[in-house]
């Protein structure tokens, strides 16, 4: 039993409680938060190495045997996501230390970040469907706190939309888990998968799967459920926008991959055309939205939606190659999008506005920022040797080899338009002549660029070491679809039903 799997949950929880208790001393709160994030980063790096070399790690909460208690399970996908979440959280905390205004800290900014990390890590590690719901709520509650922190008008109205739509998604998730308990008599993911192979009621299972698609789709901002995202992401401070773009939709993506790939693979095949269609719609609507916006962070928010379409496309291919490619693309997108949000925050800081029509001339004024932005932009567009190229290449390869020519062609077209949208930011903010008098503008403290620079470098590193990264993602994709292996890891080689019947005898 890998009892250490509890550490990335226990450490943020205890640190969050401590940093509320000791909130009077700002230095203590900050150090606790940074230390917890650093711990999670180091731990999840080690876990990733362990999982990729020795296979799945499992532990059972309170030592209750598998289908009865709550299982924590780390496979390659969990470990990769856990590592990225900790890394991006760490960068965000550094960025917050450099940029966040002091009054936010009074309203428990750092404890909320730690609770967000807790919820995200729990969602990535749990092997129990209802427990996944609980972790979703943990991360939602803390994100609600973060998105409305500051209580400006735009934040409150955007936050309301965010809260209401996410509550709808959670309700659907709850209905789905209730129905699946009625159908399979269990909530352990491995056990559900095992039971649904033999005693499947096709119609009802499809209904439940569609409910899950709605629930996770609304978290992941899949069309037509993405309307909360562009309303709520650009309004809070840039650090919060960055961590949201890094984690929130990706938890939805993870849940889609886990539940459809591992638990309900039969339904994945059945719903694949629907998922592909929704993915295509998401790509197109997202990029059309991005092209019409004039605020930096709004453009970036809409490109997130468009890229979620790519990730859904990977799921819709319903193959190990598709899932692996989707996962690779997700990892790339988390890193690059967070970096771009950091840099956009820095650009807004220099210009005093996020409206691109009133910005300009930053290429000459802040060359370091402009260089980093250019690299991030190139990575986002998918130009080699940056990480985006290999993610998109793998997706297209999977699509073409399975004969999905239409959606693959659409993906290429949408990629061009994403590049256009992001190029617009480059032109308006960095390249064109300044619109307003810039002599009064503040200079940028170089330290602010460090988190963004780290992530851009990481994107380059992923691009250069594409071989090992692709191997890792292939391993993850194969593992997602390997339901027998998942069951064996959770309940032992004989399966979960064998455990329950042995206990009865």
């Amino acid at each position, binding site marked *: 039993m890998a009892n250490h799997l509890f550490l990335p949950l226990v450490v943020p929880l205890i640190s969050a409680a401590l940093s509320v208790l000791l909130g009077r001393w700002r230095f203590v709160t900050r150090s606790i938060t940074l230390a917890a994030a650093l711990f999670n980063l180091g731990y999840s790096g080690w876990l990733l190495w362990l999982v990729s070399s020795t296979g799945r790690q499992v532990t059972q909460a309170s030592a209750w045997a598998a289908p009865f208690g709550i299982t924590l399970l780390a496979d390659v996908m969990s470990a990769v996501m856990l590592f990225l979440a900790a890394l991006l959280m760490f960068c965000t905390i550094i960025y917050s230390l450099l940029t966040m205004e002091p009054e936010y800290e009074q309203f428990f900014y750092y404890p909320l970040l730690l609770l967000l990390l807790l919820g995200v890590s729990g969602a990535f590690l749990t092997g129990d469907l209802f427990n996944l719901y609980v972790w979703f709520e943990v991360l939602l509650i803390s994100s609600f706190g973060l998105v409305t922190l500051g209580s400006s008008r735009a934040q*409150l*109205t955007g936050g309301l939309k965010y809260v*209401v739509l996410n509550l709808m998604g959670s*309700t659907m998730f709850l209905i789905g888990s*209730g*129905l699946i308990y009625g159908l399979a*008599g269990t909530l352990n993911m491995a056990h559900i998968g095992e039971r649904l192979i033999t005693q499947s009621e096709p119609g009802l299972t499809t209904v439940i799967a569609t409910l899950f698609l709605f629930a996770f789709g609304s978290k992941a901002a899949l069309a037509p459920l993405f309307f909360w995202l562009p309303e709520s992401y650009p309004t809070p401070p840039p650090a919060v926008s960055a961590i949201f773009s890094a984690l929130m939709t990706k938890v939805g993506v993870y849940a889609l991959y886990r539940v459809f790939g591992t638990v309900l693979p039969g339904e994945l095949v059945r719903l694949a055309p629907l998922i592909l269609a929704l993915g295509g719609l998401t790509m197109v609507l997202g990029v059309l939205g991005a092209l019409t916006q004039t605020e930096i962070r709004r453009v970036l928010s809409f490109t997130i939606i468009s890229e979620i379409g790519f990730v859904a496309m990977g799921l819709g291919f319903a193959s190990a190659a598709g899932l692996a490619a989707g996962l690779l693309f997700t990892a790339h997108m988390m890193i690059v999008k967070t970096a771009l949000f950091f840099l956009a925050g820095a650009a807004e800081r220099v210009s005093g506005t996020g409206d691109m029509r009133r910005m300009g001339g930053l290429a000459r004024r802040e060359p370091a920022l402009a260089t980093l932005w250019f690299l991030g932009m190139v990575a986002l567009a998918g130009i080699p040797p940056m990480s985006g190229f290999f993610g998109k290449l793998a997706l297209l390869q999977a699509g073409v080899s399975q004969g999905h020519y239409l959606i693959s062609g659409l993906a290429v077209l949408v990629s061009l338009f994403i590049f256009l949208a992001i190029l617009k930011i480059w032109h308006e903010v960095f390249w064109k002549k300044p619109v307003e008098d810039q002599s009064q503008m503040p200079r940028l403290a170089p330290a602010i660029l460090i988190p963004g620079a780290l992530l851009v470098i990481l994107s380059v590193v992923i691009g250069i070491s594409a071989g090992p990264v692709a191997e890792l993602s292939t391993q993850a994709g194969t593992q997602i679809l390997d339901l027998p292996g998942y069951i064996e890891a959770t309940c032992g080689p004989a399966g979960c039903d064998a455990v329950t019947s042995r206990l*009865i005898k």
Partner: protein
Amino acid sequence: MILILAITIGCLFAGGFYLLLRRSLVKLILGLILLSHGVNLLIFTMGDGVRRGAPPIVDKNGVAPFNVADPVVQALILTAIVISFGLTAFILTLAYRANQVTGSDDLDTMQGEG
């Protein structure tokens, strides 16, 4: 019994969705509350042998005990109630603040800039 529950759940869902579609923010929140009650009842009907005839517990001899309710659904509902309690408290506070800032209860007039 199951029929009464089914009708009740249906009414709660119908009422909840009707209220969700209203323009008033308070009614929207009431709709969310009704919906969460409906879901709790739905989970309730999913346990306790409604579909399988017996709760998932056995005594030492492997016999299902007589007259025992399904504890899993009760735990699920308790958790769901706790979560919806917290979320309702939060969203009511949020709506109150939004009402203070925008001076409106109408979702159509509550825009970011305005």
